[in-house]
């Protein structure tokens, strides 16, 4: 290889690298933010039958102005990278929570400051940043990041230093053995079983369940877990449960998270022609596959998506109508029967609109974020100190009020507390909870027929 050709090639590579880095920087909203001020965490649970005592600040008392040195809460979020669109929801929710908290007297009478670093959606970056937040910056408390990979990596750092770590959405529930991690996502310890049964129960509630079903699963750890169960065990997941229920599984394929060509997958679904499609989807996988199936002039009678970005599904056209997913909170009754949560949902919508988010509803992601903050503050307020062991003890031994209702962490279940999920469905151009019936608005039920 001559030096001139090497030099030319080298310069080409460097320019590509530089351009990619600049494009990444310009194309992303790398806002690492410190938010301060305002409170009022209203703590009334949305479920009508709650009897738990509120563990978050009493908002009925006149708010006082927080004073003294700020309490620093550190965290990372995927402000850039492939998780950034959804992490932006958690950023807005966290900013709003801290703002309301400070406006209602702060925490232990002191103002709260939230330091957010960008983990770039990369687990080792998240781990390194949590090391720095704890050992160099000496933050008073931490909040978990967004994304299963970053959460799982950060949790080991938290455990190493004994920090309480509430986390929004980690999906590898079986690996979270750290006693002082507190999950906010109310999917239960075994979503591979409970989530799957919930979806199939919803279908069977129509009286016309599918006879054939196709599984198309993103090779993402969380979606693989729900579909196939915990690795190296025989407990199974959605696929085996479908078989046990007597459905004929006519297709079972996986696709890489980086898939961009959806035509071949759409063709396989069309050829299998299932009554129902179980799509272990993330982000915009759903709209992408629907567009590919539309291009083949094919539609499935019904489909379920694991964790889609909610906004893009609503923009996926008529073919997306009737699509289902799981949720824990939607901004409609009975979830908003409590005026406090109705106000929070509206405040989030306003803040999300101001931040330019494409989908502004206070739904699963935002509510999970809100619940994680409620858990963190409840521990500190309840223990009356920033001592991590005391905060952890308080959370383990008390009922905590959250946007999902009162919860009791169960160390035997990796601190999960039952599956509080609902099935939601796109009806009349918007998401609405359809199952179980106690989460659905009056007159709303599952719409599905194998005939389409």
């Amino acid at each position, binding site marked *: *290889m001559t*030096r001139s*050709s*090497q*030099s030319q*090639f*080298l*310069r080409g*590579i*460097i*320019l590509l*690298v*530089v*351009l990619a*880095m*600049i494009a*990444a*920087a*310009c194309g992303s909203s*790398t*806002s*690492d933010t410190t938010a301060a001020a305002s409170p009022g965490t209203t703590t009334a649970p949305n479920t009508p039958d709650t009897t738990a005592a509120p563990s978050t600040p009493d908002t009925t008392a006149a708010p006082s102005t927080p004073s003294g040195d700020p309490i620093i809460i550190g965290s990372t979020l995927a402000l850039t990278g492939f998780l950034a669109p959804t992490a932006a929801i958690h950023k807005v929710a966290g900013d709003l929570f801290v703002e309301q908290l400070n406006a209602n007297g702060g925490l232990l009478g002191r103002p709260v400051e939230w330091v957010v*670093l*960008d983990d770039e959606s*990369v*687990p*080792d970056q998240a*781990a*390194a*940043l949590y*090391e*720095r937040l704890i*050992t*160099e*910056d000496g933050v008073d408390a931490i909040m978990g990041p967004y994304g*299963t*990979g970053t959460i*799982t*990596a*950060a*949790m*080991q*750092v938290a*455990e*190493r230093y004994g920090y309480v770590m509430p986390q929004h959405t980690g999906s*590898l529930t079986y*690996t979270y*053995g*750290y006693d002082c991690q507190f999950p906010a996502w109310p999917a239960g310890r075994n979503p591979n079983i409970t989530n799957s049964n919930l979806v199939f129960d919803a279908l069977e509630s129509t009286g016309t369940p599918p006879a054939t079903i196709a599984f198309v699963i993103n*090779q*993402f*750890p969380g979606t*693989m*877990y729900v579909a196939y169960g915990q*690795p*190296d065990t025989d407990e199974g997941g959605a696929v085996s449960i479908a078989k046990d229920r007597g459905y004929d599984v006519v297709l079972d394929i*996986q696709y*890489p*998270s*980086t898939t961009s060509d959806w035509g071949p997958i759409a063709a396989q679904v069309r050829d299998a022609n299932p009554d129902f499609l179980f799509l272990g989807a993330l982000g915009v996988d759903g709209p992408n596959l629907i567009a590919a199936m539309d291009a083949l002039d094919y539609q499935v009678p019904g489909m379920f998506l694991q964790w889609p970005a909610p906004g893009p599904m609503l923009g996926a056209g008529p073919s997306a109508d009737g699509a289902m997913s799981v949720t824990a909170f939607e901004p409609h009754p009975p979830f908003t029967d409590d005026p406090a949560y109705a106000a929070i949902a509206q405040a989030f919508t306003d803040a999300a609109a101001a931040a330019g988010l494409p989908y502004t509803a206070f739904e699963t992601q935002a509510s999970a974020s809100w619940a994680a903050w409620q858990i963190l503050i409840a521990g500190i307020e309840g223990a009356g100190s920033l001592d991590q062991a005391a905060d952890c003890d308080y959370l383990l031994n008390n009922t905590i009020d959250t946007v999902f209702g009162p919860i009791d962490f169960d160390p035997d279940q990796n601190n999960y507390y039952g599956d509080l999920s609902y099935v939601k469905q796109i009806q009349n151009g918007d998401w609405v909870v359809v199952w179980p019936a106690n989460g659905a608005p009056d007159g709303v039920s599952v719409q599905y027929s194998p005939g389409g």
Partner: protein
Amino acid sequence: MNRPTVVRLTGFSVLALALWFLPALQGPLGFPIFYLLFGYSLLFWFAQASSWNMFTGFSGYFSFGQGAFYGVGVYTTGVLASKQGWPLIAAIPVAGVLAAVLGLSLGFVVFRLRRLQGEIFALVTLAVAFVVAAIARVSSTIDGGSGIALNNVQLPEFLGAYPSMMFRLGLIIATVTIFAAATIQHSRLGWGLFSINDDEAVAESLGVPTFRHKMMAFGLSAFFAGLSGAVHAIQISYITIEDVFSIRIPLFVIVMSVLGGMRHWMGPIVGATIIHTLTDRLNRASDLELFGGNVTVSLDHLNDIIIGLLLILMVLAVKDGLWPRLVRRKWVGAGAFIVGILVARLWAPEMSLIGQFVAGELGAVVILLPSSEVIDRWRNWRSTTGSPDAPSDRPGVGASR
């Protein structure tokens, strides 16, 4: 073992031994524990960039295979230490061997085919990373798409608590890797690789065993990348195909080596130091208030842009990397480094040690660029007017070696 190698070995050993006891000084000196982990990260990049450079920098064969070798190392720890219950310390050498086997197998095929040179070689090595990733994805024995959490690995506790242990493991691997790179550079193998870099056909006609040299260098490069990856798996904590086999590692080692200089073993170390310290500090930089607070610039938003612009400047202005310039203008560089630190201390007395270091290195970089240019032009002008003692500015000649 010849005398220069003995001297080099002694020097590396003394330096490594001194650094070995750094964790014990954390308490008495009162520096944050984070500095040990920051030090580990720096040592990790030293090892990765040096291992890449000992083949590509010296031979001129542009390899993107670093991602595959690093990935093999990471997943060896994942499979053996997490799934099979091996102690980490036993999994590390296996990781190096497996990565070397992959490198040698790849090299055995591609180095025999002359048409697989240049861009084609780069693409082949890039494809290998994709193939390895695909194998890991479909094999449930390796990953199967579920990722591996490394929270149950038996760590070598005799190396101290976690930060000390990581620092010492990183130190061992970085020291061995850099020593190997330095030894190769000054050996017959290194001279052979440089001759391949300059013109492989001529080198072959002069009797340089090009195939053997390339195989040796590629195998060693893969071995050290695998070792380093095996340790880094612990720092990642949770490994997934997408993250481990992303383009990040191969791109960063290229950038670091090019910035520091690819024809000397010190080049990757200089480049890694600048890139890693700068990105680390920019990522958490506070807002910069200018004009009495009327204008606020959020530095962290500019992280990639600043790094990118710096690289453009380097590529255009310093064709052979910073190290050769630093050698030629060491006193100017050292002075600028000290001035940079002093300015930082005056401007922001509370700035961390790492922040001050970044200010110093930026001072050195800024002062070295124009001053070297001016001096080069002056020397060139002198050489064209007949001065017999004008030094050569060719890469790989004189001080840069």
